[in-house]
């Protein structure tokens, strides 16, 4: 399933059907979906069959990767069908052949980090397995083969993946907890695993308008919708910081392009990197106008002024100041606006993550319990901490669902989905989800708004492979197909 992101970041056929019907009848048309319609008529992530051939030096360094894959795009093509999970790993020689195919199943398209978790599952499972066969500790294998300063020859804006691995390994006590796969006896077998993930960070088109009122408050207008990521409060925080007024003096209107400027849409982890810079630029536009109005009142030149905590003051003589509202009152109101469209030149942007999990596998029932989960992320500066942590947790929860139970099962004889409902396509409950421990390796990325990179999509990318590798460590049996259900664990055990 996709939620707010995947299903709604592209026009769907029935959107057009509704429009055509409305035009034909001159009446409003409402689209209504049953849960079954939603499962069958929308889309899921593309499934894939991945075949890897990996060249490795004796010390575990990967020298070459050949990936041949088939991706199932369903009845018609909506998206690329790409597999990009190798992005977080150093692959000097890479040959990738992907064949997106049509099948008479449900259409595949965007779902949180579209081309990643299924692909990280494939590659990180394989790396983990090579480590096992070569007698290398997985943490050393992943550290050695993590992507470093450059993607090919292009440098990253920042890359703290090394620190993510170090911090996560320390937090989960990898050195003490790791053991040889399948080495522990007992009915409930302990396992520990890890994987690397992340998501591209790139700038793009954003627009914002800020109105500063004569009472010293500001009204920020942005087109972004908040699909649960905290985008609304993030934009307010950026505006408060950039303007120099307290957060509680900010009012924000978002998502209604009748009154706000345009937004490209909230997908691709691009809300903050696209619209954030526009909010900063609109705030700067306001500040220029505020200083121009305040300069004669404070009897200095505009460039000698600063604005902080809602006070316009002379930089050299901070006691010489004027409340923002009084300054603005002279102008009636001040409106700043900006449309920004920065792009990267000769740099590559990415957020990074290293995930670690401990599991307990019941050898009789095949039940897997995640006992600990540590997610360490490099997303640059964390602008809005609570929703950022929640994004990481939410991504991991979706990863848990993908790892354990979520699957649209198709009856092969009739090509009919047999579990298009919440009862049988099992989204995890609180009982499947441990307390997810989130850590950020914070730093200022030189290209992100206030040093921030992206948060939304990275967490799901590593989660599935992390859990799968932990299950391998517990059982010594590699499950190569998702979801990893009790029947597969028991069948692997029974050979």
């Amino acid at each position, binding site marked *: 399933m996709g939620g707010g992101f995947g299903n709604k970041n592209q026009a769907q056929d029935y959107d057009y059907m509704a429009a055509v019907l409305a035009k034909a009848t001159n009446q409003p048309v409402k689209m209504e979906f049953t849960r079954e319609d939603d499962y069958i008529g929308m889309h899921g992530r593309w499934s894939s069959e991945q075949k890897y051939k990996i060249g490795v030096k004796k010390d575990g360094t990967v020298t070459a990767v050949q990936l041949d894959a088939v991706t199932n795009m369903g009845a018609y093509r909506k998206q690329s069908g790409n597999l990009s999970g190798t992005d977080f790993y150093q692959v000097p020689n890479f040959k990738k052949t992907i064949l997106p195919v049509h099948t008479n199943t449900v259409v595949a398209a965007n779902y949180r980090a579209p081309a990643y978790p299924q692909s990280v599952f494939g590659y990180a499972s394989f790396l983990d397995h090579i480590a096992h066969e070569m007698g290398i500790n997985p943490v050393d294998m992943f550290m050695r083969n993590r992507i470093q300063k450059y993607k090919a020859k292009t440098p990253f804006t920042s890359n703290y993946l090394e620190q993510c691995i170090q911090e996560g390994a320390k937090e989960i006590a990898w050195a003490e907890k790791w053991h040889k796969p399948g080495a522990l006896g007992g*009915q409930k077998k302990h396992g520990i695993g890890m994987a690397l993930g992340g998501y591209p960070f790139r700038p793009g088109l954003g627009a914002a308008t800020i109105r500063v009122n004569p009472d010293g408050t500001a009204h920020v207008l942005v087109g972004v919708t908040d699909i649960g990521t905290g985008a609304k409060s993030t934009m307010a925080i950026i505006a408060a910081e950039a303007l120099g007024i307290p957060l509680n003096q900010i009012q924000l209107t978002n998502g209604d392009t009748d009154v706000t400027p345009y937004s490209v849409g909230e997908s691709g982890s691009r809300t903050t990197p696209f619209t954030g810079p526009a909010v900063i630029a609109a705030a700067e536009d306001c500040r220029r106008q505020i200083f121009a109005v305040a300069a004669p009142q404070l009897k200095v030149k505009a460039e000698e002024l600063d604005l902080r905590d809602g006070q316009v003051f002379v930089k050299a003589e901070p006691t010489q100041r004027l409340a923002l509202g009084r300054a603005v009152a002279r102008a009636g109101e001040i409106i700043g606006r900006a449309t920004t469209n920065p792009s990267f030149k000769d740099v590559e942007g990415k957020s990074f993550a290293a995930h670690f999990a401990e599991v307990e596998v019941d050898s*009789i*029932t*095949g*039940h897997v319990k995640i006992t600990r989960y540590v997610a360490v992320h490099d997303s640059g500066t964390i602008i809005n901490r609570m929703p950022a942590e929640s994004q990481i947790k939410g991504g991991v929860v979706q990863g848990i669902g993908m790892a*354990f*139970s979520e699957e649209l*099962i198709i*009856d*092969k*004889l*009739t090509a*009919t989905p*047999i*579990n298009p409902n919440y*009862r*049988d396509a*099992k989204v*995890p*409950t*609180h*009982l*499947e989800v441990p307390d997810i421990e989130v850590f950020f390796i914070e730093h200022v990325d030189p290209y992100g708004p206030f040093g921030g990179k992206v948060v939304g999509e990275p967490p799901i990318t590593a989660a599935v492979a992390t859990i799968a590798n932990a299950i391998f460590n517990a059982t010594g049996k590699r499950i190569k197909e998702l979801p990893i*259900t*009790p*029947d597969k664990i*028991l*069948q692997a055990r*029974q050979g």
Partner: protein
Amino acid sequence: MKSFQNIDAKSVQQAVTLLQKFNHEKKSALVVGGGSEALQLMKDNVLTPDYVVNLKTIPGLDTIREERGGFRIGALAKLADIEDHPAIREKLLILSDAAGDAASPQIRNAGTIAGNLCQRPFCWYFRSSSFNCLRKGGQMCYTITGDGRFHAILGAGPSYIVHPSDTAPALVALGAQIKIAGPAGEKTVPIEKFFVLPSVDFKKENILNPGEIVTEIFVPAPKPSSKGFHHKVRERLAWDHAIVAVDTIVESSSGVVRDARVVMGGVAPIPWRAAKAEEFLRGKKLDDAVAKQAGEIALEGAKPLKDNIYKVKMAQDLVQRGLLASV
């Protein structure tokens, strides 16, 4: 959902009379307790009744009474109330555990014990309006050609459903009796005689005929020298049906079995009592090897489908685990 007429019954007698009348008039009627199951069946268009007879308006059907020798549980007692009942927790722990394993907290707060016992199958072919399966009057059980990963390995054919009730295996293990009211008056039957194999009738899961309703369950308290075990294996720890469930009650002294009950859920179209394993256990000292052998005997004759072979060993192992935990 098809429109229906709801009738709030005032008494068991009135409910029985109404059901009999609708049956006579060839109208379809559905008896509703908590309603969670009925609503789902109607929303999925599996059942399209003309009438819904609501039993919740009958006073006194939801009481739980402890009396000499056991518990009288009203048909409308909620699963949550059975789960949390202090005396049931103390004396019928496997029943309270089984009730607590059913569905989700929300459904347990609405769902009743009789409703839990009278659930229709949760086979995905049966529940899907895309498949007119054998049990719904069609020609075939789609499990045979389709995906039967959760389906029956024992006692199946021509339909391969598993009985969905979590409380049924526990009640069979406890030797409960079920009271049924009908046009001919009241009758009480051992609960294991309540369920019907598809080889007898593949269109129903229990012996209830039109006009009959469950009114009460009597559960005898096990002997103080006995110990029970309940475990339900599932993919998801809430709101999921059993892949395999095992309920055991073993009466023993110094590890030697006097009497044992071994019942499995999730493996057969009815709660599956492993009578041969019970027989085998009598008089034996219950150690690891005996428990293992009992598990193997319990699964003798298992005929898994291509997708559920894993259930055989899972059930064997779980019976073994359950027996060892029951002494």
